């Protein structure tokens, strides 16, 4: 059975998004066309999205067969993890510490990158970014834990 997997999954994703939006918009006032409420336009948009999602889904059933490119967990986890580490640390450990930790998490994306050169690079980057953002752009970053 030939199916277009990206379209099938994409259509399902769009429908899920639309359904979630409609669910959370439900308690809000729709209003009337002359006096639209907060949910008026978002509801129209979400309904439109559900229809488009269904169309994509249907096309996935009949369209040219296609597969989804293999996802690799390691790079995705390392990159997204690095951002999470930064977010968790920046207001607790300060900017330089957060950058250091984020870089050392990010390099886990590929095997054998966590070495002395990456550590040195992380230190340099932390110093450069702190100088640029804290001092040149005057963003009030915390510096120390």
């Amino acid at each position, binding site marked *: 059975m030939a199916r277009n997997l990206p379209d099938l999954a994409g259509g399902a994703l769009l429908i899920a998004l639309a359904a979630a939006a409609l669910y959370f918009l439900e308690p809000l006032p729709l209003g009337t066309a002359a006096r639209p409420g*907060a949910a008026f336009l978002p509801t129209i948009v979400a309904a439109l999205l559900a229809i488009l999602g269904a169309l994509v889904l249907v096309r996935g059933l009949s369209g040219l067969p296609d597969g989804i490119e293999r996802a690799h967990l390691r790079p995705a986890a390392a990159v997204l993890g690095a951002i*999470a580490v930064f*977010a968790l640390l920046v207001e607790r450990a300060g900017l330089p510490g957060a950058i250091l930790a984020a870089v050392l998490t990010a390099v886990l994306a590929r095997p054998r990158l966590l070495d002395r050169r990456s550590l040195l690079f992380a230190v340099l980057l932390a110093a450069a970014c702190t100088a640029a953002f804290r001092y040149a752009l005057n963003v009030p970053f915390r510096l120390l834990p």
Partner: protein
Amino acid sequence: MEQIADGIALGLAVALSPQNLLYCFLGVLLGTLIGVLPGIGPVPTIAILLPITYGLEPSTALITAAGIYYGAQYGGSTTAILCNLPGETSSLITCLDGHAMARRGQAGAALAVAAIGSFAAGTVAALAVALAGPPLARVAAAFSAADYFSLMALGLIGSVILARGSVLKAIAMIVVGALFGLVGADPTTVQERLSFGLPALADGIGFVPIAMGLFGIAEIVVNLERATGRRLLGATIGRIWPTRDQWRGAAGAIMRGTGLGTLLGVLPGGGAVLGSFAAYTVEKRLSHAPERFGQGAIEGVAGPESANNAAAQSSFIPLLTLGIPANPVMALMLAILVIQNIAPGPTLVAARPDVFWGVIASMWVGNLMLVVLNLPLVGVWVRLLNVPYRYLFPAIIVFCCTGAYSVGNKVDDVWIMLAFAAFGYLLLKLKFEAAPLLLGYVLAPMMEEHFRRALSLGHGEFAVFVTSPISAVLLALSVLLLASMALPAWRRRREAAFRR
């Protein structure tokens, strides 16, 4: 005419102020620096460098961002010529003959023609913006709310046709973007919607974390999955200044490319892409020896490179006069203006002449800087191409994190960026283009405002969108466009055009 001359004089005064000159230079330099890095086109470059513009005056901010744009685009051409790696779609076509020239040891001449062609194109296109802008703004000033709504709808649909990939999926992405754009307090009733009670979402989802997550970070993850080694440059640069024969071939191509690019850049969608493809086709058709194309014909570099730069500039026309971004780069520019509390649109010329004319003048100044900066520094850019990815990607991640935080000194923005990075990665895997999402996101709040105003003026009757003749025509055009895309014959032609 006199008014335009005054405007240009004002613009030059703004653009040539020491501060703006410095930031324009900085923008072009950083734009080239980041844009020359493999796989990073203008949109992620501007997204990554956005924090630089935060604390600046509106005109300086826009001038800096425009400088980044030109720099990034030229950076993309440099990698296309030297490494056969287009930074973005508008320099795709440059790879064909540009890289062929590089393989024959004429990389220097190809780079020089690209830079000089871009400068010539930039000069003409900047003048076109100056001439077409004010009259267009006067026409647009007569538009009612309903007309505006319909114009934006037409712009969104038009941008889909010219975008790559599936039309249906692109429209779906616009709608997803619109939904994200409507999150937060409703502008009239101030009631929060889809914000889940989170203070971070009360004012809507921030533009910077969305752009950085979707374009900066998601791209990195995919690059890390795919690429292992990178092709290094084998060829030498060769002499920079083109020979007399090369000039003779390039001059006509530059002029034709400029004309085509200026016209096509105004259209919604991939103006620069369309311009460069059209210019290449025209050069090949006009050539006495079309077989040279693909083997290193200098016209094949001069035409498309002039066209994409001209288009890059004329795409500012709809943004500055109508407040409608024609492509994702212009959506970023619009966001910069909105961050600065400036409403782009027909009133911009009158209300903020310094911004309007300053940007136009800086186009010319920025292009001059590109030539001055790039030709002597080609060697430096080449070396940058060899920066190992192992240093590059952590640096981009850190810069995005720090940048997202600095928009409002909120950690929540970093989390939002993380969410959109994951979402963007998912979209790439499912073969959705993220660019239309950005357009929908930027335009949705503006469309909602016009939608409301139109309905309240029309006493709640939807007929208001068809009783106004301008709006009716615009909506009819939108429907026509949509219908034409459903026709199989049209669809085949469009696909063939993108397959080059």
